[in-house]
């Protein structure tokens, strides 16, 4: 036994002395407030204090903690209490998985330095990664806590929730460290499941005697393809279930699950994969699109003879004629890398088998109803037999739209008829889960003498990896968006999603649009340069707006605020250019550059039905409950939808409780993707709440303007002249209303013509970068974002989305590159730290969307899309180098700058007088 003193309390615990302290805290003592994100000291999620100093608990041997004073997020401490309050008030916790680590790192700082400046805060938090917030609200929260200047809770009267910067309604548990994520809880006696994964990108294999291996290794079971009771297949597309739960003699990527080991935690961890009876026959692997499309390349799936999963297409006007007559033409080839979601919570969950084929699965997810379908198919049972209970989700960004642990857990729990739990290791998560599609793009764009865009054409190949996942979505979304948020009369876009032996690519914030925007916005800069126009001016001149027609033939009738976004940025753009010119006039090595980019993004599925249903109930005991099936992955839908429902009903948000995303309890609100929850589920919640209000008003025979008040089971309805009281307890039944909303779209024809989305988000960003031209390093100093959100339901949460989108866009532009087999951890794969973020200013444009709840539309993805192209535009402004490959690692930029010489040919915006 090892004696530990945690938060002043002595514990005795049985543990391997070498076991990481984080593991002993969580599994030995049940103190799951300390999170494990990497077990390698790379993410800081497990930060605790040891003798008052912040340490990664995953790097401390349990024996080393003996006799030391350990402080975790579960501690009661006045300073920690102040930090919790400040985090909540500032929106510093989004998904919340890094919050315990951030709080402990902050506590360490404030105990050392009661009045830190911003740089000191960044230094103190530099060892904790956050993937949601872009760190800004966290840093502000720490500064607030240090000053004792914490914003008071906002009073929320009936009807005042929408538009208020309310702290998240589910935030208290996140800052207390009591939120339960996928790995934080499991039934007693659950078996542990560990997947054995292929170390080969492409191989055939045969299995030997698994039963003998099971007995020899002391395991409860070894699962393989033969154990899958239903169909050994899953996948996002309804007609394309191409990925096996367990590979059946053939693997198509490194990281594919081959076996499942079941037993005690120690037993499954002790198994050496090399000792398992797997005979590998490695095959040459197809890495990258070119290899998969090469003559004679092996066919990876029978349904795709040429390794092309799907083609996307959009055509309008006559592109060739328009290019022929254009005044200015631009053309380029662009490449992007695999990008890892790097949510700090690796996939985790548990399954509990029930009688008669029933199965309950609790796991982190973005799509509970899709998970249910996948698990049911794998189990060979009706959907209704499976219940999905989402745990708190420690970041998703698209990566938790696909199933991960769910089918593995389902099979394991069915075969053993026991509860089973599973937690991915960081490397397992990175090697096996989906990525952003690498893109190889060839794009052309043309303009007339006045700088009006006349044509755009793109051919794009997207590496979809070994399995389809969301490849078709990317291939279909890109052609619609690729010409950018501009009026372009002649467009021809063609895309392919190509199977390879790389990690499957799936959904990642933007579904291919961020990749395409890198190409498009570079061409816009090219045209500006060719025509001698300012880069803001050419965008403003072409910005799509109300009444304009998209390349899909859709008329934008409302909520098209890109012109307003650009106008909001204009003074700062001018100031930025002036600052750059003044600086660069005297500096040769360290050059400033200003860049600009725009984006648009259709909210919801592309020309497909994607309804949400919401139910709201006012019970006879006076409890008001929203049955909200939308999973909050940190972006804030639980709060935003509650704000909408409360105001639509006319009661204060504090009166509303919610049941979230449990397939047995909540109607289907679709998946948390494509920036659809505020818009689609929010609208369903608004309609449901309005319907409930209408029933109440009818019961009271009151007019539309009546004011409601709820006091226990007494519901007061105050009209202009009369006040009625309904005793809810006296009613025959609870008052319930349900509403379904499916955004109106029109299917796309063979040329991509139709109405793919009911509404679009628009945004523009400008970036200021500092380039060390000798070392070719880039520091993003400032980003100013302008975004049309329709209606800002919660400005605090929107700011968090924009900051976080900018952080991910910065990573995409400058540092993130997943290479299968090489950057499978968080020290070789780099995401931005607290010290990499620019100063950010935000202009919100509210051009209301008539379809949206209170005019609102989606926010999450738009924030990311313009960042990378704006940074590239700024690098070009600073150096004259037009980078066409991301990430712009120092060596890539250095190669183009050419030995640290001063930049040639700055863009026209740099010219004197601009």
């Amino acid at each position: 036994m090892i004696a530990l003193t945690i938060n002043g309390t002595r514990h005795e615990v049985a543990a391997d002395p070498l076991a990481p302290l984080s593991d002993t805290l969580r599994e030995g003592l049940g103190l799951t407030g300390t999170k494990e994100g990497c077990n390698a000291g790379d993410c800081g999620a497990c930060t605790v204090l040891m003798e008052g100093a912040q340490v990664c608990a995953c790097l401390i041997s349990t024996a080393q903690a003996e006799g030391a004073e350990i402080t975790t997020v579960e501690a009661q401490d006045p300073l920690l209490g102040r930090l919790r309050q400040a985090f909540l008030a500032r929106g510093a916790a989004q998904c919340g998985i890094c919050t315990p680590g951030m709080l402990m790192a902050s506590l360490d700082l404030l105990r050392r330095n009661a009045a830190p400046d911003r740089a000191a805060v960044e230094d103190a938090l530099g060892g904790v990664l956050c993937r949601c917030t872009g760190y800004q609200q966290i840093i502000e929260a720490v500064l607030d806590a240090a000053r004792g200047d914490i914003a008071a809770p906002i009073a929320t009267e009936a009807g005042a929730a929408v538009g208020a910067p309310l702290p998240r309604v589910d935030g208290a548990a996140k800052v207390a460290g009591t939120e339960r994520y996928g790995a934080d809880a499991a039934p007693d006696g659950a078996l542990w499941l560990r997947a054995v994964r292929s170390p080969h990108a492409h191989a055939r294999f045969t299995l030997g005697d698994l039963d003998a291996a099971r007995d020899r290794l002391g395991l409860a079971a070894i699962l393989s393809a033969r154990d899958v009771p239903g169909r050994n297949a899953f996948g996002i597309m309804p007609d394309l279930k191409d990925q096996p739960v367990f590979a059946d003699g053939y693997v198509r990527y490194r990281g594919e699950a081959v076996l499942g080991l079941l037993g005690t935690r120690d037993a499954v961890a002790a198994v050496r994969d090399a000792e398992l009876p797997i005979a590998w026959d490695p095959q040459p692997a197809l890495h990258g699109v070119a290899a998969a499309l090469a003559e004679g390349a092996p066919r990876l799936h029978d349904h795709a003879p040429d390794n092309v999963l799907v083609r996307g297409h959009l055509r309008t006007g006559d592109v060739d004629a328009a290019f022929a007559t254009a005044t200015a033409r631009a053309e380029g080839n662009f490449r992007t890398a695999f990008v890892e979601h790097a949510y700090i919570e690796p996939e985790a969950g548990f399954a509990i088998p029930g009688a008669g084929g029933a199965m309950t699965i609790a796991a982190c997810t973005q799509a509970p109803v899709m998970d249910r379908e996948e698990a049911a198919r794998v189990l060979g049972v009706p959907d209704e037999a499976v219940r999905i209970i989402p745990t708190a989700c420690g970041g998703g960004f698209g990566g938790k739209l696909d199933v991960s642990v769910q089918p593995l857990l389902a099979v394991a729990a069915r075969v053993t008829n026991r509860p089973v739990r599973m937690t991915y290791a960081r490397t397992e998560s990175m090697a096996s889960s989906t990525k952003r599609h690498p893109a190889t793009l060839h794009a052309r764009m043309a303009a007339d003498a006045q700088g009006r865009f006349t044509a755009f054409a793109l051919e794009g190949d997207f590496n979809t990896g070994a399995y389809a996942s969301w490849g078709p979505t990317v291939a279909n979304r890109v052609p619609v968006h690729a010409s950018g948020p501009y009026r372009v009369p002649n467009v021809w876009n063609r895309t392919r999603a190509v199977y390879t032996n790389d990690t499957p690519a799936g959904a990642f914030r933007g579904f291919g649009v961020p990749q395409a925007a890198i190409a498009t916005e570079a061409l816009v800069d090219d045209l500006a340069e060719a025509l001698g126009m300012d880069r803001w001016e050419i965008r403003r001149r072409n910005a799509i707006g109300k009444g304009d027609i998209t390349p899909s033939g859709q008329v934008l009738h409302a909520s098209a605020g890109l012109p307003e976004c650009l106008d909001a940025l204009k003074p700062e753009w001018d100031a930025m250019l002036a600052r750059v010119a003044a600086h660069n006039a005297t500096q040769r090595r360290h050059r400033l550059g200003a860049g600009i980019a725009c984006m648009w993004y259709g909210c919801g599925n592309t020309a497909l039905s994607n309804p949400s249903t919401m139910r709201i109930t006012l019970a006879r005991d006076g409890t008001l409950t929203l049955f909200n099936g939308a999973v909050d992955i940190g972006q804030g839908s639980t709060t935003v939808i509650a704000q909408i429902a409360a105001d639509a009903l006319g009661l204060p948000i504090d009166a509303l409780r919610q049941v979230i995303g449990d397939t047995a309890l909540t109607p289907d609100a679709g998946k948390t993707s494509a920036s659809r929850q505020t818009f689609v589920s929010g609208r369903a919640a608004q309609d449901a709440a309005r319907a409930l209000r209408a029933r109440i008003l009818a019961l009271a025979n009151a007019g539309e303007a009546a004011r409601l008040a709820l006091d226990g089971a007494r519901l007061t309805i105050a009209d202009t002249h009369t006040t009625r009281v309904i005793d809810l307890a006296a009613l025959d039944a609870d008052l319930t209303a349900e509403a379904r909303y499916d955004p109106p779209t029109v299917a796309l024809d063979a040329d991509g013509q139709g109405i793919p989305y009911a509404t679009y988000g628009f945004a523009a960003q400008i970036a200021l970068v500092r380039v060390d031209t000798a070392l070719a390093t880039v520091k993003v100093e400032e980003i100013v974002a302008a975004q049309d959100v329709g209606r800002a339901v919660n400005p605090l949460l929107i700011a968090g989305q924009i900051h976080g989108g900018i952080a991910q866009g910065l990573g995409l532009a400058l540092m993130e590159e997943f290479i299968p087999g090489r950057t499978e951890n968080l020290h070789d794969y780099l995401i931005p730290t607290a010290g990499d973020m620019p100063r950010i200013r935000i202009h919100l444009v509210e051009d209301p969307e008539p379809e949206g709840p209170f005019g609102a539309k989606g926010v999450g993805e738009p924030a990311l899309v313009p960042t990378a192209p704006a940074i590239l535009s700024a690098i070009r402004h600073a150096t004259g180098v037009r980078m066409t490959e991301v990430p712009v690692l120092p060596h890539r930029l250095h190669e183009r700058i050419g030995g640290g010489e001063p930049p040639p040919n700055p863009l026209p915006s740099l010219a004197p007088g601009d």
Partner: protein
Amino acid sequence: MTAYHRPRTLHDALAIRAATGALPLAGGTDIHPLRTARAAWGDPWRPEILDLSAVPGLDGIEESAEGWRIGARTTWTTIAEAPLPPLFDGLRAAAREIGGRQVQNRGTIAGNLVTASPAGDGIPNLLALDAEVELATATGTRRLPVGAFLTGYRATALAAGEIVTALRVPRCDGARGRFAKLGARRYLVISIAMAAGVIRMEGDRIAEARIAVGACSPVARRLPTLEEALIGLHPSEMPRVPQPAHLAPLAPIGDVRATAAYRADAAVVLLRDLLAGFAR
């Protein structure tokens, strides 16, 4: 279960090391990640451990007439916050660039050395400081220059039965140290390249220069021809001196962080920046 030793005296630690060959562990900032990396691909690793964290006398910095003795287990935070002369400014700067603060609070100077990563940020500084490694066995002690201790990529001259007990840094009166690190992000980043230097002046001229570059060869290297070229110069003349030819002892490679060609060019820039810093 494989043994985990946590002795309370150096005598016991050396006896265990001699008898078992157990792997010495101090801050754990390299050994735990290595375990994680191996486990991820089904290669569980549970070596016999000699935990040195409870052995007295292995941490802290002592000054004597000869110079400084930095205990093997001294953490980067301790080094960064110690009242050391400007000779150590490079080492102290490196101490604030290693990992994040969590790692700086646990990672030790001897651990950085024994791991012998080409990208170990402490190592070029120790080379520039002319540091020696103090090694002990149950039967005696010996000292080796850091350059001799490091024998190759993640390889050292640490003998069976031996543990590192301290780093010894000789006096170099009036000398100053500096460090320059290049990485692809601000915190928590493995160096693409780095340079460390110690410069001693006589009057307004360079009397002694010790310059080392890391992450550009299997083992960080001193650059003797550059050092010689700096002797007798005025500090303001130093930044112009480094040239690609001075990098002859290096052998940069291309990896996920950078190409070999970039490393070579960046090393020259880092050296010029490093030397320019001395002139300020």
